[in-house]
Each structure stands twice: as structure tokens, then as C-alpha cells.
């Protein structure tokens, strides 16, 4: 690991965000974790923080959110600078069992994988491992 990996969680469900925090910490130790209950704010944050510098970040993104769904978020994300986008590995994290959702997630080139809730420690570990392998 060259640079410590950061984490962003976008989900309107605070419980999920809490759980994700716990699991990430358990698997990756002390890390920088930001969670957003409003995708719009998450996006704003990304624009502000990632336009300079390089911070490899894993982003867990929920699908079903009231004001802006995960899909809409992805559409907005797509419009960002390549430089910003390159810093992210996006994982859809949803409780949906709808195969359509999964397929749609995997078809999106910005999405690495589709994860079913709840996020577990081992999942985070394997994400990290693959991340290491990649970097």
C-alpha cells in the first residue's frame, strides 16, 4: 500500500453507514471513512476534495434513496473529471435482490461490483486484497 485507502459510504440509511464503518475499521484498521446520507452532498464533497491530489477511495453506494437514487448518482458521477473518477472504486451496496439491479450495476463501467447488504468484514478484506493486487 502506497497511500492509505479512504472510504466513502453513500446511503440514506444511517444504520447501514454505522455498520459499514464498523466493518471497514475491523478489516482495514483506522481509516478515513466519510459517510453521506444525501448523495448530493457526497458528490459535492468529492468535487471539493478530489480535484487535487490522489486519494484512492473505495465508495460504497446504495441504490434506493429518496431524493437521488444510486443510479442518478452514478450519472452525475460519470460527468466528473476523469482525474477524479480514477481515484474511485465504486461498489454498489444494496439490499435489493432484484437481478435487474445487479445487472444494471455491473453494466455501469464505473461500478466494480455489486454487493448485497450487510457489508461484512471479510468482504471489505477481499476488496482490500484485490485493491492491493491492483495497486
Amino acid at each position, binding site marked *: 500500500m502506497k497511500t492509505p485507502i479512504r472510504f466513502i459510504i453513500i446511503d*440514506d*440509511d*444511517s*444504520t*447501514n453507514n*454505522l*455498520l459499514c464503518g*464498523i*466493518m471497514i475499521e*475491523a478489516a482495514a484498521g483506522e481509516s478515513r471513512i466519510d459517510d453521506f446520507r*444525501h448523495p448530493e452532498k457526497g458528490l459535492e464533497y468529492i468535487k471539493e476534495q478530489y480535484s487535487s491530489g490522489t486519494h484512492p477511495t473505495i465508495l460504497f453506494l446504495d*441504490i*434506493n*434513496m*429518496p*431524493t437521488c437514487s444510486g443510479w442518478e448518482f452514478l450519472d452525475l458521477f460519470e460527468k466528473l473529471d476523469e482525474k477524479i473518477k480514477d481515484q474511485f472504486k465504486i461498489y454498489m451496496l*444494496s*439490499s*435489493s*435482490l*432484484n437481478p435487474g*439491479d445487479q445487472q444494471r450495476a455491473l453494466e455501469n463501467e464505473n461500478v466494480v461490483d455489486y454487493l*448485497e*447488504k*450487510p*457489508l*461484512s*468484514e471479510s468482504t471489505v478484506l477481499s476488496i482490500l486484497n484485490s485493491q492491493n493486487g491492483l495497486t
Partner: protein
Amino acid sequence: MIENDANSENDLSATAEKLVYNVIPGPAASKDLITTKALRILHLEDLPADALLVAKALKKAGFVFEELVVETRERFIDALKNFSPDVILADHSLPSFNSAEALEIFQGTGLKIPFILLTAAMSEEFAVGILRKGAEDYILKDRLNRLPNAILSALEKFRLQKERQEYLNELIIREKRFHALVDNGADAVAILDAKGRPVYVSSSVKRILGYTEEELMNIDLFTISHPDDTAALGDVMQQVMANPGIAITGHTGRMLHKDGSWRWIEATVTNLLHDPAINGIVDNFRDVTERKIAEEKIIHANRLYAFISQVNQTIVYSRDEKTVFKDACEIAIVYGKFKAAWIGMFNTEKQLISLVESCGVGPRYNALFTNVHYGKDGPQYCVLKNEISFVSNDIQNDQQLSDWKKLAASVGIGSIMVLPIKKLGVIIGTFNLYATEAGFFNSKEISLLEETARNISFALDILEKERYKLLADEKLAISELSLKQAQAIAHLGSWELNYSTGMATLSDEQLTIFGLNIEEKIQSVESLLSFIHPEDLEYVLSMMEEAKTGLNNLNFYHRIARRDGAVRYLYTQTRPRLNNEGAPTGLHGVSWDMTETRKSERALRESESNLHAIFENTSEGFILTDNTGIVKSFNNKSKEIISLNTGKELSVGVSLFDFIHPSRKDHYNDVIKKVLSGETLRYDYPYTHLNGEIKWFDYRIDPVYVSGEITGLSITSTDITERKQGEQLLQRSESNLNAIIENTDAFIYSLDREFRYITFNSALRNMMKELYGVTIKPGYQVFDFITEFEPGRVQEWQDVYSRALNGDIIKFEKEFFADNNYSYTSFSIHPIWENKRVIGLSCFVHDITQEKKAEEETRFKANLLNTIGQAAIATDMLGKVNYWNKAAEVIYGWTNEEAIGKNIKDLILSHQTKDSGTHIIEELKSGHSWSGEYIVQRKDGKAFPVFVSDSPIYDHNKNVSGIIGISSDITEKKKLENHLDKVNQLARIGSWEIDVAKKSLFWSAITKHTHGVPEDFVPDLETVIGLYKEGHSRASISHALNEAVENGIAFDLELQIITPKGDERWVRANGEAEFVRNKCVRVYGSCQDIDKSKKAELEILKVYEEKNIILESIGDAFFAVDKSWIVTYWNNQAEKMLQTPKKKILGKNLWSVFTGQENSVSYQQYHLAILTRQLTCFKDYYTSLNKWFEINAYPSENGLSVFFKDITQQKKSEDEREKMTADLLQRNTVLEQFSYIISHNLRAPVANIMGLSYTLQKKDLNDILKEKVTASLSSSAIKLDEVIKDLNEILNVRQELNEHTQVVNFARLLHNIRLSIDSLIVSKEAIITADFSAVEEMLTIKSYLHSIFYNIISNSLKYSRADIPPVISIKTQLFNNKIVLSFKDNGLGIDLQKRGDEIFGLYKRFHANKAEGKGMGLYMVKAQVEMMGGKISVSSEVNNGTEFKIDFEIRQQQL
């Protein structure tokens, strides 16, 4: 630690320095003691030297220390308190007290530091004693080198002791915490030994299973495991034993609660037998019964909905019963998760049921269900009898199924359900579902399965109806086909010609006759006429013209030439088609291809015997030649004619040209050429015989056909000399008559029906000119004259002329006063008859003033009479002749002298007519005139016919004084009449005449021939009437004759006779009566053989009738209209279906009967059909009849033919089916929503619970985090519960359709809702206005309407703008038969463009900051509105409010 201890033991002899580094590598605390912090030593010693010695030794060993030496008891106690030593060194013997005492004091302080005894000498016994008392070590003063090590090891020992103690304390705390956790947490913990017996249970177990710890310790877990789960539990335990140290998670099974209920337990089991600290199997378990039930409910719901949805899809897409059955069985297994399913059909007569489709039954058992008798108590009988489904949830204990028990147990069936399957309302079979579990069919399952069975039954109805419809269609097709075939068999084509378009439409057979293709169905008249044989074209055109102008039904023969050159002979009958104003719009025709008939006729003509008969029995000459003009055959008559005309002998083998005058040969060549090309030629030609007599002949040259080819000529010659002479005579007599008229002083004129002059003689013209100065001309109105010169007499004259027009002959005399003179004039006005109709009047007027004035004048008059060609004879009342003119002398042979004074009877009346003559005289005496034909005789006794006009002669007193008779010889005229008879003969028209007085009957030769009687047949009325076919024909002719005789009614009948030979044939007989003095004297008329044409006509009529029968008997309504929408045909079914009787519509404009249809589908489609000339098929709803029709409109050249099919039933089924499909689609949407809820809203909290519980189990969490986790756990559980409740609510809405309706007052409803959310309204300062004036109440389901109001209003309050108080206005409107309910607010609004399609979706939320919304309200509103048959729509703008509109059909309200 142990290893380290061993090391230090081994290195005890090593140097102190080394010790410092080597001995204390472990805890940082010891290291600190030596390296960073001085060791504090309390030294109890009374000898300073010894103390110094000790310090020296320690320093030498490298100790950094602080030393306090005390020697008294008091100082020692003080030092213990204040010095806080790390170690105590004590000399044994001290002046004031000893070491034992010191130890005691030290121990009293509770300090945990080493106490080492330093002594000079010591007994072993004492040493052991003091060590036992608590000293750490003892050192002999002479062996001080051991001291540093002793101190170090003691310190180390104490450090370890202290550490252990701390650790212990920690442990105790942890233990307490752990207990608190396990005892108070949701989970219970049990530790089992290797045999599975509990060695430890947490107290929380009581909450889960109800047992106390003590009770549970004595229970083998396997004994309280559910029998069904024991096997699985055993497996899990084996797995646990095989995987020490690994947590086996997720095992669930049922355990017996102390209260006897079964609880679902989820356990995480870890084998820690190898861990000496635990030496057991840790079973961490929790009660998941609630979750399990929820999951099962969902699985159950999913399974059922999948089952129903699949069955419904099958129903929608299947085309036949078998597929429905087969699929239903398969779906039951695959989606319904049933063990087995089968469908059986009843044979109720034999009380049998037979399996038709199955799944999961297995071939072995199929036989069991084939033609099996169903018992009186069995489920099949129950279903059949009670018409409800049968359910047994416990086969083993069901009395009704006792026979079944064994089999059910062996194949593992616990529950059974038998559902009725109906077709058209009758149970025809059952749908049998078998489930493994007992108690499988709960009430919800039963109701849904029953719905499925009803759906299947409904599908069968639809399929059955579809089958009927196909059969009906097929039948119609057959009817149409047979009509076509009928035409084809009769070789009878039909066609319709439309005058306005000039286009004709041909029937299929007509096309065949013309040799045309089906695409050429519609032809222009020109194109059609191009097929007419060129020689017949003019004739056909004239016929068509007559049909069009004369509006007659015409029958005629003609030929056509097909494209391939073939000539066909057609018999065509036409009927004009008229519009309602009687103007011709077209021509309808039927053509009969009689080429074959014609051919056979020709063949007949070829037959030798017939030819011979014709040859020898005719007055006509016949010659047959080959196509070069060589004579092949001839008859005697022709030989005679040729011989007379040319003086040459006719014989076989000579050429016709031998008889032709050289000057006519070229002409003859042309004639023969024409005939050989198929023409028939006819001409008249005069020959001058050798005796100088001129003879006229009629020649007719026909082509002779053999097998359709012209092989020669036939020449027919007839002597028409007499006819020619007759014609000449006629011409001559006409000019005579003209001379008479012109040379009389009488005014002779004729008038037409409008009393205009047609002709008049010069006498009249001159008189008018001279007397009145009027120049009359043909066309001059006689009343114009009268009005001008005799205005007062107009009426009188009108009466006179009108009477004459009615058929009376009117004769009278008139006195005129002019120029102071009286003049007398005699008028004779005769009606002119033509075709039994008076077409005008002929008037004879002469001045009789002179006769009246003087006797002498009479003579002058008599002389005058002498000049005319007619005999004029006057007698007195007794018949004595007193005047006899010149013409009378000529006609009767008696001279004036001979005749005067004789009685007229003796002079001219023949023997036969004497009596009637007397009678006429009697009539004349009473003032009547008489005219007519009469047989008289000449002086030489020869009888001959005359035309006589007898009039009475009046004296001055106007008494009859005598008779004047004008008579003319009409022998020639009679001859002409005879000739006319001959002409009739040519036309094969026979004549007949009945002499009423004599009751005798005359038949002409043709009449006899027509009736099939020999020429010598003597007809009498009785025999003749007997020839007419019994029944209609005989009755008609008797009646007609009677009417003619009695009332003078003419007749014209087509009747059937049976000839003496037994042939049946049609004849046309017409007749009229002649009346003399109101008495019928004679009935006469003609008759004609019309057998062939009549039969053809009947054949056509028959075909027409067949067509009509078909049209009348088809189950569809049919009508036809012409181009101007006049209804020309309207069948029985149309009467019924359209509820309009024929008499009300036939001949009328369709749209004048069906008014106000301009916007109807039918109106537009009919016009479209005519416009595009294409068949249109469409469906239309007739509101007034409350019926749906499928309508086929066929445009033709004449108009439109329309078929109606009543599809109301079908449409209803279709609508029902559509509704069902829509329901299904909706249900599918609901199912999708379901899966959505399951995947997200249900699973999200479950996922959270899973994650949180895992965290709780595994993680060392700090208290804050732990609190957060447990709080989240509980909120997730609450969320899960809410979703399950929501689900329940949604399912209920879908099912509560049958909830009763009631009248709900909107204002009251709103009032109640206001009360229930009063606090919210007050806190928001909301204003709610309502206007229910348009509709105050409606019939509906109250709870639904309440929910709708509640949800929409609370939504408006929830999503109101922060800056202004919410205003909600509610109102009702009545619009287009709908109640429109609208809710309008001024709230946040929704971006409909972005999210419009989701607004009524389940769990859709639009406002992130509004935590209370969960996306149920509008979903429920929409569901409820739709359940009540309404529609909801929304319009909204962000930050500008939202308006909901709900439409309810009024019809719905009237239910």
C-alpha cells in the same frame, strides 16, 4: 513467562550487571525499578556496620537504591507508612523488638512487598517458622552476596503476584460483564459437554425457552428439539465436533418451550472442547420465531402469487382446454410447490371420474384415477354435489378419507384440496392439489386457490365460446358457398349496373359465363358491352335503353363473344332498379347461359325425322345447302316455289346460284357470306310468275350449326303475297276514308285527352274561320274556343267530353241561336280506344237545321247522302223504308224504287240476324242509337258483314218517328282482320273467343297447338277449363272468365296447363269482354306458349328465393342500401336484431329511420366503405339497443350490403377477459411491488439486523459504539415490523373489495378527519376549505374514502412549505357523468417531470428531509381509488403546490 523464569534460575550465578539486563527482560515495570527509578529499601537494623555492609553489597551488585535504616519499632511503623518501600530487609534480633514482631506489623499494613530476613545465625526451625509466617526469604549475614539476587527474585515474584492479582481482578470484572451480557442480551448461551449435556446455561435462556438454568442443566437438548428437526440437529452437531474452534452459524430449528409451544431457534455453535478454559461446546442461540414466521409468510405469499400469476398467464395465452389443464398441473408443482396435482373429468351418468392431466402423480397412480367410481362420501362427490371446493388438512385423521389414509401415508401426502372446474356454469371436473404437509391449506391459500379454479373455469367458458363462434363462421361460409354453387349449377349469373357510375358488378357465375377472372368483378358498361356479339349489340343496346326509359322488366336472348372467341348464347332478364322517387338508378340482371340448351335445340333440328315433319307440314319452303350453296335437302313446297318463280327444277346437288338471276348473284354471294359467319338474313322479294301474277316471298336464311360450327345454310321462303295485298288494300281504304272526311259538311274532328285538336276536317276549319274568325290548328284547345264564344256553356261541354273520355259514346242534338236564326246541330262523340285505354275522342258534328225546318230539305239531305260511300237507310217506326241512298243500292243490290216502302227486315236482314235486328229496332225506339258489326244479305242472298250506325229520327215534338241507319261493307276489313290473325300465327300467338249468348268457344289453330290439342279439336268451355292445371291455374282462369263476363274486367294471366298427352306447360292467356247494352256478348283474347321463358323465369325466381332463403335464414342481420341510402333489403334477422320491422324501413332512407347517427362509428364506416370501395369490418355499440355488433359492410356499384352480427355476449366476455387481463397486469405490478418490497424495504432492515448482530457477537466495541449498535438493532427491528404491517395492509386492500358500500357525506367525512388530526392542523396553522356543493355525497366504501381523504390531507400538511401556512382546498364537481374530487394545496410540490411516474409507487419518497414519509400513503390512495373503479391523477409544480383529481364513474354510483 515460564521460560523466562527458567532462564533466570539458570543464570543465578551470573554477574549482577548481567542480571540487570538479562534477568528482567519482561515487564517494563521491573526495568523501570532498576534503570529509571531508585529502589526504595527499608532496612531494620540496629547495627550501623551491618547496614553499611548490606548497602555496599547492593551497590556492588549495581543497585540504584534509596535506603532507610530504622531500629525502633516506632520508626519502623512510621517508615512503613511514609517511606513507601519497595522491599523490607529486617535483622532478626533488635534491642526493642524482633523480626517476628516486625513481620507481624508489616503484615498488618497489607503492603504487598517482599520482607526479607537478615540474620547472623538462625536455626533451621526458626527459618521455616518465619518463612511460614510470611517472610519472603532469609539471608545469613555472612552470605550477603546472595542478597541482590534474593531481592530481585522476591521483587519479581511480587511483581508477578501483583500482576496476577490485577489480571484476576480484570477477569472478575469481565466475568461480571459477560454475565450481564449473556443474561440480559437477546441471545442465550449454553455450554455443552462432549455428550451434548449442558454444563453451563446463561440465565437468559429462561426468557427464550422458559426453563430455569437448573431445569435446563438436566435436560438433553435433543429431547426438546422438534422431532422433524432432530436429524438436522444431529448433522449440525457432527459438523461442530468435526470442526473444533470454528463457529458453525445459522442453524435453525424448533425447540420446545416450557409452555409447550415450539419456538424457532437460531444457533451459532462452536466446539471449544479442546480449550481447557472452556472444555465445552458453546451454543449461542436466540429466538427467531417471529422472523421465521414473517419469512414463511413471505415465502408462502410468493409461492401462491407465483402460482396464480402463472396459471393466469396460461389462461390468457392458451388456445385450448388441454393446454390449460396441462399447464395448470405443471405450474401447481413448479410454482405452487405442491406434491402432486391432477385434473379429472366427470362422467356423472356413470358416476366416474377420469384423470385427463396430471403432474407429480406418477404413471403408477395414473391408472388409479382412470374411470374410477367416486364414492358418495368422497371428496369428488362432495365437490360435484355442493359446488364448493373440498379441503382436508389432515388426511390421517379425516373420516371422510379413511380409504385414502394408507396410500397418502405411503406417498407422503398430508393435505388435499379438490377444486371444482366448471364449464358454462356446470361442474365438469376437478382440480386436485396434494401437499406433503398436514395443515397446508390455510384460509388465505384456500381462497386464492378457489379464485384460480374460477379463473380456469372462466378460461374454459371463453374457449368454448370461441369454439362456437368458429362453428358459426364456418356455417356462414358454407351458406355463401352454396349460393355460389347454386348459381354455378344453373349457369345463372347475375349482375348489377349502376347508371350513375357506369359500372357493373358481376357475380362469380356471371364472370364464368363471360370467361372472366375474379379480379374483373367490376366492369365498366363499355367493357361489358364489348363482350356482346357485334350482331346483337344494337339489339342489346336497344333493350337496355328500353329498360332504362320504359322501366320495364325485359327478357331477351343475345350472344356474347368471349375473349377466346367462343360464342355463348344468353337469355337475359333485367329489372330496373329505382330510387325512392321512381327514377332508375340501375339495372339488375340475370343471365342464363343457354348455349348448351341452344346446342341441343340445334341438334334436335338436325334430327332427320323432325326435319321431315317440318318439311312436309309447312306452307313454307325449305332448302338446306352446304356452306358452298350446294343443295342438300329441300321440301316439296320449296320445289314448287322455285319452279313457279324460276321455272327451274330443284334437286339435290345443284347450286343455289343456278336459280339466281345473274344480276343478283353478287348480292347473293354477300348474303351467303354473312350467313356463313353466323348471321340470319331476311328479306322480302317479289317474283313475277309466268302467268303475269306478282307473288311476294319472304326469304329467311339461317346458318346451320352442327356441333357449334356452321356447316351450311337453311333457306325458308314464305308466300306473303296476300299479306302484301292486304297492306295495299289497307292503304287504299285509308285514302278513301280521308276523302269521305274531307268531302262532308259535317264537322269531323278528334281530340286528345286534354281536349286539344288532333285532326279536323276542312269543313270544321272553314266554319271556324268564317263564323268566328278563328284559325284552328292541331293542338288548339277546344275549351279555349268555348270559353271565348260560349262562356256560359263551358261546364256543360266539359261534362260531355269527360263522359266520353270515360268510354261512353255520346250522341245528341243541339239548338243554337245565331244571327236571329235557330240552327240545329247533331253531335256524335266517340271515345278512341287504344290498348283498352281511351286516348282521345272522335267527334262528328253536323248541322241538322234544315231537316228540322222542312220536309223538303230532307230530300236534299237524302241526295247529299247519296254522295257518300256508305249506305244510308231510313225507316219509320215499323221498319218501312222511306229513304235509300245510292250507296245502299250498290251495297245491298236493291234499287231505290225497289226498296222504298218495303220493310227493312225483308230487304237486308239475313235469316240469322232477323231476331236480333228486331231487337235493335226496339232499342232505337226508346231513343238509343246503336252501332256495330252486323251480318246482312244482299238482294242475291249473299251474306256479308257491315258496320252499322243506327240512330232514331225525331219529329218536331221530339218523338221518335223513325230510324236512320248508316252502314258500310266491311268485307275487306274482315279480310284484313283475318290477315292479322295470320300475323299472330307467325308470332305463335293464338286467339280465342267466347260467344257468351251461345256459350260457344272458338280457338285458333295456334291456340290449339299451344294447348297441345289436335287441329280438329272442338273446344267447349268445360273441357278447356279442365285442361288448366287443377288448383291455382284452374281456379284463376274460371274466376277471370267469370269476372270478364260479369263485370267486364280484362285479364292477363300466366297459367299452367296439362296437355292431353300429359305435358305440363305454361301459357299466357289474356282476354277482354265486349259489352252491348250493359251485357256481355263476347269475351275474346289471345294465348301464347310461354313455357320456356316461364320455366327459365321460375328457375331464376327459385334461385332468387334460395338466395332470399339464405339471406333470411342466416343468423346474421343483413340489409342492403342503394347509393342514396335507400334500404332495398332487410332480412328477418335485421328486423329482430335492429328492432325495426321491414315495413318501417324498406324503401326509406336509412338515416331518416336511424336518425342522429352522423357521429356514430357505423355511419363513418359505411361512408368509408363506399369511398374506398373496400369491405370494412368493424364493431359498434348501439346504445339504444344496448348491443354490440360486428358489422361487415360490402360496397357494390349499387350501394352497400351490410351484415350484422350480435357480438354483445362475445364483447362482454372480451371485456371481462380484458378486465381480467388488466387485473392480472395490475396484480403482476403488485407482485413486482412485492418483490421490490421484499428485496429492499423488507431486506434492508434484515440486512441491518444481520450486520448489527454479527458486530455485537464478534467485535469488542466500546460502550458508545455498542449503544449505537443496539439502538440501531432495535430501530431496524421496528422498521421490519412496520414493513410487515404495511404488507398486511396492502394485502387487505386487495382483498376487501366486497366490503359493503354506503352513502358517505363528504362534509361529515372531512369533519371527522379534521378532528383526528386537529393538533397537526393547529400546529401548522393550516387552512382547509371545502366546497361540496356540486356533489354532497356518494355511494362508496367508507373506509376507503376516509383513507383517501386522510392520506391526501396529511400529505399536504406533511409536505407544506416552511415559509407559508398550508392552505388545502377540496371540492367536488360533476363532469361528464363523473364525480370529480379534487384536493389542491400550496405545499412543496413534486417535480413531476423527474419523478412523475413514481408518485403512486410503493415506498417512493420525494422529500429527503421529511423523515416521517415512508411512501405508503399515495400508494394506498391509488390502490383504493382503483378498487372503487376510479382514477387518480396529479398535477404539481415544485414549490407551487400539488393538486390531486379523482374521478369516479357515476354508473358506479348507481350500483
